[in-house]
């Protein structure tokens, strides 16, 4: 009986958010899964059980997977290019700043600013920068390449059949590398100076100090960065719409979900995509949560 006095008030305090999360997050996830398993395939609402019908339909959908110009291939290419590009640039920038430059604060802000710009606005600018038009109609990067005498670098950008989505990742890399830089910079600063000194005392070269002392300490940062970038990437919608519009050549699962629900009014199939996206993101996030809980318990 005295127990409740211990946990009661606390529970009372958090119960509103528990209820809200239960209803508006988990309740709606459940509802979405239910819709994906129903036969609600037209504008007329229906909640009859249809099993995995919508998922099977998706599997045989030529837009979905896995040949050229399909949603799944697009999102995989986009994600890989985006994560690798952002991590590399983020680490490099953080490393340079960490080595000590004048006006670090200034550079830090400059690199972070792109994150403050919405994907829609960035997309409009990058659409112009990545203009694939030939000859005198070209603008942006292709013109710059031409002026610099490296005209052979000029390319079709996001219209490229196989690697177009890697070009589509450029604006996202531009927008988020500053953020990843900030994460790594904090990580670098978190490595105690004594450790580096100890390594140097033992005769380690600067390369080995980083290789064996600093970078191993950054593993949690890399993991967080991967999770953050991974889930942004899988959900990408606004950037695609701003640059490519509703075209198959740049279509990703999130865009197709929108088309299926609002244009085709195929709610079950749209909900099936939403469910698959959630599962894909969970595969990324759940190991991270387990890892975090474990390391917190150990600490």
């Amino acid at each position, binding site marked *: 009986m005295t127990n409740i006095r211990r946990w009661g008030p606390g529970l009372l305090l958090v*119960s509103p958010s528990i209820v809200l999360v239960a209803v508006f997050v988990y309740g709606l996830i459940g509802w979405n899964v239910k819709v994906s398993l129903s036969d609600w395939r*037209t504008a007329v609402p229906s909640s009859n059980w249809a099993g995995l019908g919508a998922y099977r339909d998706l599997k045989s959908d030529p837009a979905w997977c896995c040949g050229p110009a399909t949603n799944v291939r697009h999102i995989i290419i986009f994600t890989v290019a985006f994560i690798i590009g952002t991590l590399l640039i983020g680490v490099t920038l953080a490393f340079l700043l960490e080595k000590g430059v004048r006006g670090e604060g200034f550079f830090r802000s400059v690199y972070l600013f792109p994150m403050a710009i919405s994907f829609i606005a960035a997309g409009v600018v990058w659409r112009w920068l990545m203009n694939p038009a030939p000859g005198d109609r070209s603008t942006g990067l292709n013109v710059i390449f031409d002026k610099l005498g490296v005209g052979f670098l000029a390319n079709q950008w996001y219209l490229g059949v196989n690697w177009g989505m890697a070009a589509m990742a450029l604006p996202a890399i531009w927008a988020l590398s500053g953020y990843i830089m900030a994460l790594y910079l904090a990580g670098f600063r978190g490595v105690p100076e004594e450790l580096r000194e100890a390594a140097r005392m033992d005769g380690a070269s600067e390369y080995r100090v980083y290789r064996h002392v600093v970078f191993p300490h950054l593993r949690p940062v890399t993991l967080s960065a991967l999770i953050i970038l991974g889930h942004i990437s899988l959900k990408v919608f606004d950037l695609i719409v701003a640059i490519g519009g509703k075209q*198959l050549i740049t279509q990703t699962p999130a865009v197709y979900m929108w088309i299926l629900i609002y*244009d085709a009014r195929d709610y079950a199939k749209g909900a099936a995509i939403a469910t698959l996206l959630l599962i894909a993101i969970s595969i990324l996030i759940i190991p991270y949560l387990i890892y975090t809980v474990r390391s917190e318990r150990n600490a």
Partner: protein
Amino acid sequence: MRRTTILRLALLGAAALVLVLPAASFGGRSKQASPQAACQLQVFSWWTGGGEAAGLAKLIKIWNANNKSCQFKNETVAGGAGTNAKAVLAQRLAAHKPPDSFQGHAGAELRDYIKAGQLEPIDFIYKQYHFDKVMPKSLVSQIKYGGHLYSVPVNIHRANVLWYNPKVLKDAGITKAPTTWNEFIADLNKAKDAGVIPLAMGEQWTAEHLWETVMIGVLGPAGWNALWHKGANWNTAKVTTALNRFKTLLGYTNTDAANLTWQDAGKLVADGKAAFNVMGDWQDGYFSGTKAGGNLALKPNKDYGWTAVPGTAGVYDWLSDSFTLPKGAPHRSAAVKWLAFLGSKKAQDTFNPVKGSIPARQDANPKLYGTYLKWALKQWKSDKLAGSFFHGVVCPNAWKTKIDTALGLFLQNKDVSSLQSTLNSAAQAG
């Protein structure tokens, strides 16, 4: 014991409060919108810019002058071809809060709303005001669903127009605009040799637009209209021919098509960088409209010319913006009056010259219309009608999405037989 009960009650109370609060606020909102307020005609459309918004403003002025007791409430949502508006509308209809009347492309695109029981049939308005006498018979029959009419078409656009730059044609040695397929290919080759883009094209939907005009050119209006029934046979030699022609045309288009809007593609023709472009007749508004309105202020028949897409002379590939009567419209009698007004000669002759389209009625006053529209008015009286695929006349939305995908893939792989089999299986699903 008592203390725990109190705590438990408090917990439950808090939880209940959390659950009830949002509901209470929703309730409050719906009360405010109760129909006891002064009558307001809520009209939902995606006419937010250019000639469409200006035309709507003129209609609103007339409406408000004649309906002092029920003023117009303009509920527009921005976004080309209504893509955003349709999403907003779907949410409103699902929440049982329909406007008094909403815009939709006349024809099969409205079928989703009809099947969901969200629209009232309005045959009685047609009967009372004799719209079926002044609009083409085939138009009225093509927008019927299950024997009933559900919308009043305000305007008619033509999709199968071939736009060209007369100066570019002359320089390339083309003496007159092509009318047959063979002439068209010969002219495209001449343009290519002259070093301009033979056929300007924009992003995916403009390719689909081109596709439908090529299909109609081969199949004719009857053959085309016959394709749009569940179970229709698309595995015919004629469809194969049409798809091959479409493939041939794609070979004459600009490589950066997917990066261009329809205006960008049209401007290539206007700027003399391309010879031809297939686009709906909203292009005329873009070409001839004022610079202040973001248009090009060109002279018709001098700076730009037009003709039917080769093979489609005598066919009007039409599309239409229309307005509906949603079930449960808050001010139904005003909405009925609005629809009757939209079908009137006065409203159609007020709206269309500004919007850059022609009236669905055949008794328009040609003096009010510009050079291109005068031509279109004449065609509208004599041409056979074929409903537009991309612009929602012949094809319900789910079917259209499948074709969007198939054509999107075709733009990448140019595989005619796989496209044809996908199109055929889409038709079997209906």
